[in-house]
């Protein structure tokens, strides 16, 4: 098998590395495909369905999620068709009914010429893209949060809705959340996230707060660092 495959996106002839996704190929060619649950650092997930495109391959036309569909020789991709736009409009309207304030959602809605959601509002804030859960698991390597319940009642939650025993308060979940749903604050040497207060470690020289103790312990453990590695902050080193 050769390393490159030939495909067309919106009529443009392109070459893309075998094994890459349509979304990547489009990005490389500066073709815009909206997406919400995809992040290059995370494994393909394909849940928000905003990134759908219409493909024709071996005489079969269908709608697929571009963030997971791998490019193939002779693949023809249309990123803007009526069917595609209908799915995207539906998705953004449905998400707006969970969160009508998010700038990210509004920007996408505007590009799709959606003014507002026609659906019953049921403001939940979280749009269940799962980026927080996946980042925690795949990037941080902790797995402190997960899904609770299924279907429309699904939520991102800590185990049993209690203080998350494995959480190291690194804040990555809040950082990746596209709709700023995850509450996160830092005050008087305490970081608060997932309704839990995490004391932070002070620099033994300047007294500044470096990071939550649990987070530093986690680094020491996983990276095999000496016990006093984080006693002094970067500035004082």
């Amino acid at each position, binding site marked *: 098998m050769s390393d490159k495959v030939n495909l067309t996106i919106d009529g443009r002839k392109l070459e893309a590395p075998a094994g890459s996704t349509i979304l990547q190929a489009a990005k490389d060619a500066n073709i815009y495909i909206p997406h919400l649950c995809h992040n290059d650092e995370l494994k393909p997930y394909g849940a928000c369905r905003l990134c759908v495109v219409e493909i024709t391959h071996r005489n079969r036309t269908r709608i697929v999620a571009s963030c997971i569909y791998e490019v193939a020789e002779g693949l023809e991709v249309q990123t803007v068709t009526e069917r595609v736009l209908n799915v995207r409009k539906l998705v953004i309207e449905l998400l707006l*009914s969970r969160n009508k304030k998010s700038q990210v959602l509004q920007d996408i809605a505007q590009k799709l010429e959606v003014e507002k959601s026609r659906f019953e509002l049921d403001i939940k804030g979280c749009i269940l893209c*799962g980026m927080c859960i996946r980042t925690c698991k795949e990037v941080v390597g902790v797995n402190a949060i997960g899904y609770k319940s299924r279907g429309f009642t699904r939520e991102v939650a800590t185990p049993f809705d209690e203080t998350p025993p494995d959480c190291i308060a690194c804040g990555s979940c809040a950082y990746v959340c596209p709709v700023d749903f995850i509450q996160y604050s830092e005050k008087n040497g305490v970081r608060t996230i997932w309704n839990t207060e995490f004391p932070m470690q002070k620099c033994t020289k300047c007294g500044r707060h470096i990071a939550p103790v649990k987070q530093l312990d986690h680094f020491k453990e996983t990276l095999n660092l000496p016990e006093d590695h984080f006693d002094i902050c970067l500035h004082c080193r």
Partner: protein
Amino acid sequence: MKKLTTPQDFFDYQSEVKKSVDPKKTQIIICAGSGCLAYGTQKLIDGFKAEIEQQNLQDVMDVRASGCHGFCERGPIVLISPGNIFYQKVGLKDAPEIIEKTVLNGETIERLLYKDPQTGEKIIREHDVGFYKKQQRFILGQNSQINPTSINDYLAIGGYGALAKVLSETKPQEVIDEIIEANLRGRGGGGFPAGWKWDSTRKAVGDPKYVICNADEGDPGAYMDRSILEGNPHTVLEGMLIGAYAIGSSEGYIYVRNEYPLAVTNITLAIEQARELGLIGKNIMGTDFSFDIQINRGGGAFVCGESSALFASIEGRAGEPRAKYVHATDRGLYDKPTCLNNVETWANVPLVISKGAKWYQSIGTENSKGTKIFALVGKINNTGLVEVPMGITLREIIFEIGGGIPKGRKFKAVQTGGPSGGCIPEEYLDSPVDFDELTKLGSMMGSGGMIVMDERTCMVDIARYFLQFLEDESCGKCTPCREGVHQMRVILDRICEGNGQEGDIETLEWMGQAIADGSLCALGGSAPAPVLSTIRYFRDEYEAHIKDKKCPAGVCKALITYKIDSETCNGCHLCFKPCPTDAIAGEKKKLHTLDQDKCIQCGACYEVCKFDAVIVE
């Protein structure tokens, strides 16, 4: 028990078993399927056995507790063979009489016979009963010929013969070619040709390769797969063994719905028995072919029956579909080549092999071959499991096998394909049962649910009911299915409550298409079908709800009023007691009245009135 070390060894053993069956002995076959067991069949079995023992008749007759016969509504069912005498609703006290009169003296017992509701005629033989007449029970029919806990019973009817034949004389690729030629298509929903799936799995690179039986059966009201597993577990094992041999697989799984304890018990026992004989395990019948099967209890959700969710569940992860545009035949369970087929699909395999692709092809339509088992339920006289040749019309199933609609009411629609199937109206009743035809009609074959609806069914309400089920079963991973199905249901709710708005129908149609296009797995992909198909065929009913604020079928409470017809009411007083709010007033033998302020539209009076004097508007 001795291990069979060559195919010849097997054939010798099988003829021995066949010879040990005394053809002169009468078999009293008692259905011990889940349906009949619920009527207390176990006592009946014990009763017959005790009676036979007491009278010392063991040499002339045997009792056989068999799997489901399909006509569950008439249970407990007893068949007397030879003669194929069909007794229904048999009680413990009937046992001595059946032994005395029927078995010993060849007389039939009138009161236990089935009475044809149309002609009033008493029917003696099973195959003359209207319910069975048009069926072709190649698979379900075996249920009454065997006791599912006895491997010898299965061997005696030729069981494992197809496996032995394949192991002794057929190359794996030839087996696949035979299945392709027979055009056996998957019975679990999609109707994908099994032979192609086997072929792809065989050709895929990877080791080990897995063969899996999907026995999750999550459709409400469906129990086809359950009846096969409970009533004839060996035939499923034999099918899987043949498939594994053809594919080159050494490991298999049966993924069984958790609520099926008897199926698990019977299949577990069957695996043990087959292993003892050397039909499962290492070097089967002394050949190079080795295959073992594990049982996996289901994750308890409807979506776990979906292939990628099923793999996740076996792997110990949450039973959630994965969006992978790679075929399971290349990367399925544990990312290895995997062939997943439904219980009924596997059960068809020994049949195809032993009777040949040519024979199999002779049954059915151009592109749908063999038989299909349906769970026939709803507003129909004969409910139960039916196995029919492909190509039979819906009308034949509903009006001949099913005996039509009860209480002389009119047929309105039939829903095929499980909760996400579509509703087919009267005008298409002459359509053949065929994978492609049903899809064309906006429904599908699905796994074999068939729900009949009469004129008193509101199509908006029924669409809402199915959607509610699917909303509850959505895993919640992708947006269109999780949010979209919910919002469609919200719109249907408001239509049924009399708050439908101009444009709702068009919104539903638009959403339905986008949800079907955009969802991650086939649950969302097919979830809009109940709504889309009812809009397609019963649009006027939707319009009546929205524009006229009326429910033509008289179901949606917010849109109906009950009235008492002064002409027909004869004051029989029957409606008095059932009314929970004392809304009905009037003396006996005098005209009754209904107080609209008190009426909560429960419909109790409507249901009990024998003179159709309660009318709904």
